[in-house]
């Protein structure tokens, strides 16, 4: 099994003429299923322990929040949206790369996506799960969050659909549902592979139920591929709409710094930017730890870095245009807000954002930076730090100087803010590690389908 990758490359040399044209398929199967079915790797336990410890922070922070109230955070009358909404927008942004890779790159026939789409989709779902916590706990009485769902009730009330906050509810829940179904449907054939590779009876049953009894029949594949294409086509407008709707929370308000039409595309570009940074942060170590360098190739990592340059430039352009519009509009309140954003008491956060989001990705112009795993991971983490600060800057600086001096204030986080943020990372990493251990982290069937051997023995057209 260990040499299967060599066998794969040998077979790849001449489709149909190698010693065994099927060795390449077998190699992919063995290399990916070994991660899920083999013994737990040593690195997994400490990683899981640390993630669980961080998750415990979330449990403790939420317990304290629910039993005491929102006052445990640093939020105040002026800074009503602070880290809670910053974290929400940050996580939901990260959750964009998965669907983008799965859907948009699929529609554009970017075959390199097959190596990373599964884990990117999983990352999306876990990021959306982490994001979903924040608007709910932000309501103060989260046990009434179900009032957001339209249902007949003894109060005779209905939700207010003209509010962007309700649009959020529908956009996020549709996105979560679609992402989960897309991810799961893509996994069905690979779960069947795990069922057939598993040695233990209980694993065969568990994977057998999960894969719905998939047997790879051509008639099934035909409908499956059609359904997959449709889901990709549906997810593409969806992924663009979700962060647009999130930006409406800000853009439809009257607050200077928020009330601007550039926000939807600006948010979507930032979301893709941060999402790719997170995919790179996770996959660069994972391909070494799971021995998948021949499936997740260096060129794939490079392609992600190039997308980060592109989206980083878009985000940088949005910062510039935003500033220009504030000045060119002649609106004194807008211009004051932006001057204050850059020169005021939050200028440290603004320059953190600009340097991480605009300057850091410029290193990816150099091939050396794109191919060095350490540099890729460090730069990707810096980009996500910058993207967190972008959301914080938008929220905190726009609220810090509102129309009346009585509505001026500074936000200082409490330890509970910090614990909640750490805890959301704990939830994300815990879920991702469970996924990386027990589920097919590579889209096995899709990778096989783009191998040259997939066309072996066919008539030449």
């Amino acid at each position, binding site marked *: 099994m260990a040499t299967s990758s060599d066998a794969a490359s040998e077979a790849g040399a001449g489709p149909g003429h190698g010693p065994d044209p099927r060795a390449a398929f077998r190699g992919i199967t063995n290399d990916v299923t070994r991660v899920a079915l083999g013994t737990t790797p040593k690195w997994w336990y400490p990683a899981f322990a640390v993630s669980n410890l961080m998750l415990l922070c979330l449990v403790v922070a939420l317990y304290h929040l629910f039993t005491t109230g929102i006052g445990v955070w640093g939020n105040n009358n002026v800074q009503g949206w602070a880290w809670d909404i910053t974290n929400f927008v940050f996580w939901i942004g990260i959750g964009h790369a998965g669907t983008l890779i799965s859907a948009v790159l699929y529609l554009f026939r970017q075959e390199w996506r097959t190596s990373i789409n599964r884990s990117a989709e999983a990352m999306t779902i876990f990021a959306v799960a982490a994001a979903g916590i924040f608007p709910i706990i932000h309501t103060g009485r989260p046990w009434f969050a179900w009032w957001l769902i339209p249902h007949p009730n003894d109060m005779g009330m209905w939700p207010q659909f003209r509010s962007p906050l309700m649009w959020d509810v529908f956009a996020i829940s549709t996105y979560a549902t679609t992402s989960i179904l897309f991810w799961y449907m893509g996994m069905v054939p690979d779960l069947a592979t795990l069922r057939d590779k598993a040695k233990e009876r209980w694993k065969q049953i568990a994977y057998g139920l999960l894969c719905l009894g998939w047997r790879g029949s*051509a008639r099934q594949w035909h409908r499956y591929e059609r359904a997959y294409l449709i*889901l990709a086509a549906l997810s593409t407008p969806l992924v663009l709409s979700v962060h647009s709707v999130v930006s409406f929370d800000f853009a439809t308000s009257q607050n200077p710094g928020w009330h601007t039409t550039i926000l939807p595309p600006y948010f979507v570009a930032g979301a893709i930017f941060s999402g790719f940074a997170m995919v790179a942060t996770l996959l660069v170590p994972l391909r070494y730890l799971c021995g998948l360098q021949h499936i997740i190739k260096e060129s794939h990592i490079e392609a992600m870095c190039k997308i980060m340059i592109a989206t980083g430039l878009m985000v940088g352009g949005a910062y510039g245009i935003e500033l220009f519009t504030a000045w060119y509009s002649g609106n004194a309140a807008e211009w004051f807000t932006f001057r204050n954003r850059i020169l005021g008491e939050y200028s440290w956060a603004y320059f953190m954002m600009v340097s991480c989001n605009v300057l850091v990705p410029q290193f990816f112009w150099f091939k050396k930076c794109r191919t060095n795993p350490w540099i890729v991971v460090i730069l990707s983490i810096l980009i996500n730090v910058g993207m967190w600060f972008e959301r914080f800057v938008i929220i905190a600086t726009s609220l810090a100087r509102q129309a009346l001096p009585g509505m001026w204030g500074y936000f200082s986080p409490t330890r509970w803010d910090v614990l909640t943020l750490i805890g959301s990372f704990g939830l994300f990493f815990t879920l991702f590690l469970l996924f990386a251990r027990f589920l097919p982290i590579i889209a096995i069937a899709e990778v096989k389908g783009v191998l040259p051997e997939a066309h072996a*023995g066919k008539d030449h057209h």
Partner: protein
Amino acid sequence: MTTPATDDESHRAETPPPPPPEPSSDGGNGDGSDHGGDAGTDEELHGLLAEFDTPGALIAAARKVKNAGFTEFDCYSPFPVHGIDAAMGIQRTKLPLLVFAGGLAGLFLGTLMQWWMNAYDWPWNVAGKPTWSIPANVPISYETTILLSVLTTFFGMWAANKLPQVWHPFFRLDRFAKATDDGFFLGVEASDKRFDLEQTKQLLVAAGASHVDECYVDARPEARTMPRWILAAMAVLTMLAVIPIALVYKARATKSNQPHYHVFSDMDFQPKAKSDQPFTEFADGRANRGQLLGTVARGALKADDAYYRGLSGGQWLTGLPVQVEPTSAVIDRGQERYNIYCAPCHGFDGAGHGIIPERMAMLGGAWEARNLVDRGSVVIKMPNGQLFNTISNGNNTMMGYAAQIPVDDRWAIVLYVRALERSQNAAESELPPGAEVR
């Protein structure tokens, strides 16, 4: 080895007849082994499963089998083999049409929901905006369109593919596990009207199959149904799932004297103090809180003796406090207040003939209010401070007016009473020019 005889091995690995016999070494006991141990005689042929080396070989074989007139056959591969649909004659799926219908339903239902809830059933005025305006309702209609399309796609694929179907006869063949790994299979079902064991086997071998296996299933249909314990477990779980719904229905259909069960009490039952009631949350058990020692409530200090009490160094103030200026505006104000509060007893002229003494006399009583303006009256001799104090706190049968009349107004009344005294006792020679005595 061609008869379905005594054990699983017999039908598990079958050598195709024409090539040199090379018995497949595939002898593992897979999931099928617990089925047939005793009753090989009860087994019936399900079909033939042929294995091919490459996707191309599978396509060619599929074309041959289709051209031979077979309909009950399918190909199995670890990934979608492109070109096989045409070779097998697979009709293009109708799934996209179904999804289109689902999307339209989502658009219609999402829009209808918003209109019905916000514009019809509960038209709620938000800042005077229209209850029904398309732009504000687009995002949610958009999301419901996508949501229903996605659900239709996903479950439509299940339904069209008859999933979930966790068991299939071919799963009894160990070799079939390669269908999700590196194997390319073509399965012909015995139910096809052109099926003939030997001839079909020949056809598959001629099409390039590396192995052809016969696949048997238990002849008794009941052996192929779901095990009884799974059915029983599903029945029990279904019954258990009904219990919460039944409890909710019972709660809605019956009456109860008990208060609602509050999962989250929020602020419904907070410990709350009402005045002059016992209250256990405080150590002394009383709801009322006394004044804190050494403190004065905001605005209650009243340290200025002259202004608030009419005193100056312990004696009645003879002049006026510095806050009070004897202007005609203040005297006019004093007149107005006097006519409201004082005149009912003391009379408009201050001589004590108000409406109340008059009424007392009519009823046979004998009481007069103090004459404020008589030369001999104590009031004339009173210092201003004492008069202010009398208005504030009362004297003899007169009650205090501090609660009704603010401090400034009480001083204004003092000034007006002084003006009344002066005018009632003036000599004709003191009148200003043009004035006349009435």
